[in-house]
């Protein structure tokens, strides 16, 4: 279950924290053009064994959120504030070598582009063996044996031969399987998959997602799936967090987000999933314009410039006041100035148009 609190209502007294709890996480980078606030005040939790989908366009801050959890932002020169609690341990305050010990063992990550994510000079088997030996004191032969088992496990055909292959000798799908095997080799509690299928063929995409789902069940791993494609989320995720302009804009269980999204941005994302099982709606409503520049965010709601409904809010609050992420129903949070009644009405209308097209 998702359980999000606003920045102010902090200081939970209960010693029982959820498995993953991110509290008021902000990341900024100093660039020549000024300070880039990549993510701002992200707060969310995730129970053990669940899958959370983080959805948003490029530049919405979803990858930065993932890399902040992994402790990879500091090496990129970013400044991280807030708290990241993983299994009872706060990560952001740890020394870099302490986080490094957790990386690849407690938490692991799969990246978007398997073509460039493996080192071109080393054999894939050696790269996985390296991941084992970084965290466990076992012999090289044992590590290699384990690597071979894992390669078979993630569905690499002729693994005995492929273990000595170089990355460029494998297809994109195979490389992503290798990446998944490398991520899971130390049985991490948390697996972050950052757009794991974006760079792959559609047929391979389904295979990879299925592989992640299967392995997640098998290993009992908690998964954060980062994607810009709401279409692949429904089958995989328990919860969905929608990000826009470095902020969470809507958070809820997958069924809530699919059946009753209330934030206009989420509605826009849902409307733009191409589906083969229905005709094109008469009036297609894409999200117009581009994501905001993180250096120069709109002063009010960050989505306002692209929102079709902001003129329905009185006093032009969308232009001047940052909306808060507030609960609208149990397990459902929305960041929007529109009154709840009106949001639900809009949501219903949009979904009727989408559904009507299929008749």
């Amino acid at each position, binding site marked *: 279950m998702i359980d999000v609190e606003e920045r102010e209502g902090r200081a939970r007294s209960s010693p029982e924290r959820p498995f993953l709890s991110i509290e008021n996480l902000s990341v900024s980078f100093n660039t020549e053009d000024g300070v880039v606030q990549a993510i701002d005040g992200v707060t969310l939790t995730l129970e053990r064994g669940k899958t959370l989908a983080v959805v948003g366009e490029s530049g919405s801050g979803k990858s930065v959120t993932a890399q902040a959890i992994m402790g990879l932002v500091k090496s990129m020169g970013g400044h991280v504030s807030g708290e990241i609690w993983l299994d009872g341990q706060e990560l952001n305050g740890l020394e870099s070598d302490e986080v490094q*010990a957790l990386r690849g063992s407690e938490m692991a990550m799969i990246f978007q582009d398997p073509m460039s994510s493996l080192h071109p000079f080393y054999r894939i088997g050696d790269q996985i063996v390296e991941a084992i030996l970084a965290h466990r004191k076992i012999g090289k032969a044992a590590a290699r044996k384990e690597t071979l088992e894992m390669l078979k496990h993630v569905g690499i055909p002729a693994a005995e031969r492929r273990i000595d292959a170089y990355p460029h000798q494998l297809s994109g799908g195979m490389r992503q399987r290798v990446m998944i095997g490398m*991520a899971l080799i130390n049985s991490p509690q948390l697996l972050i998959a950052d757009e794991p299928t974006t760079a792959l063929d559609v047929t391979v995409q389904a295979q990879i997602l299925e592989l992640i789902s299967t392995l997640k069940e098998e290993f009992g791993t908690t998964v954060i799936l980062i994607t810009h494609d709401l279409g692949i989320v429904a089958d995989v995720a328990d919860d969905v967090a929608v990000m826009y302009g470095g902020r969470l804009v809507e958070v809820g269980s997958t069924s809530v987000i699919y059946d009753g999204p209330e934030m206009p941005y989420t509605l826009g994302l849902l409307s733009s999933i191409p589906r083969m099982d229905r005709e094109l709606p008469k009036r297609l409503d894409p999200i117009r314009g581009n994501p905001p520049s993180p250096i120069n965010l709109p002063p009010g709601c960050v989505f306002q410039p692209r929102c079709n409904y902001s003129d329905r809010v009185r006093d032009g609050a969308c232009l001047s006041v940052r909306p808060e992420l507030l609960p609208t129903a149990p397990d459902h949070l929305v960041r929007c100035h529109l009154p709840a009644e009106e949001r639900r009405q809009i949501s219903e209308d949009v979904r009727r148009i989408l559904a009507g097209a299929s008749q």
Partner: protein
Amino acid sequence: MAGYIVRRTLGMGLLLFLLSLTVFFLFSLMPADPARLTCGKACSPAVIEANRHHLELDIPPIEQYQRFVGGIFFGRTFSQDSPRPIECEAPCLGYSFLRNQEVLTMIARAAPVTFWLAIGGFATWMVVGLTFGIVAALKRGRWQDRTVMGIALVGYSLPSFFIGLVLYFFVILFLHLLPNPQWKSGMPFKELGGFFQTMLLPWITIATLNAAFYMRLTRNQVLEVFGEDYIRTARAKGLRERTVVIKHALRAGLTPIVTAAGLDLAYLLGGAIITENIFNLPGLGSLAIGSVLASDLPLISGITLVAASLIIFANLVVDLLYAVVDPRVRVG
């Protein structure tokens, strides 16, 4: 891989053939008449014609070229019908009638000087260039980086004749820290101390420009690799930062630099004209300048051929080396 080596070697042979052809005919087109150069002002046309015959310049150029190439493989005899014919054994690169010596003998005498000059300079600039470049990349934006880039800019801006002369003037003439450089045959195995005293300043002179160049190259290359996805993967695996830097970033970043440096070394082995002249080193560069000033055509073509062959050969070695260290380049 074997097929690749064979193909490349054959290609190299073809290139060398075309090269020798070009060099030979380019110089035969030169306006200077080698026969006229053989004797002084008060030279009678009859003597010139006789010398022309001795030099074998009175036969068609094609035949001259045939004899030239034949000489390389089988040796040849100059001035066959004169009372004192000159035997030139294979590989014969020609005979300098101006200096009355075989071209190959002169090159062989000059080559060790240039060889040690180039090797020492190369080692100096690679060590300095790579070390400083790596430091600059790892400390990007900080004072270490700015210092190194400042040094590189200065080093890059100073021409080698300027650095050489300044060093020569201050270190040798003014401060008397080193004796006047003097190359002796048998160096460096005899007189190791004298060898270093002679070569130190020339090495620095040669290394400065290249070190500056390699500092910048290394820094940029390493920084570029640090932005690669596979470095992020290495960090995500939980490797120590040392391992990430050395095994993952530097391995990928320095490989193209170190291999390509072979070409710069080969270029240098063809003679460092300015540095050799400043420090009075009798290497290939000095020999080349002397031959050009004297219009000594056989010597010019000989040196050009040797220097160009070095480059072609180094090219092959670099490509093979690259195929060994970067699995993506491996073929066949």
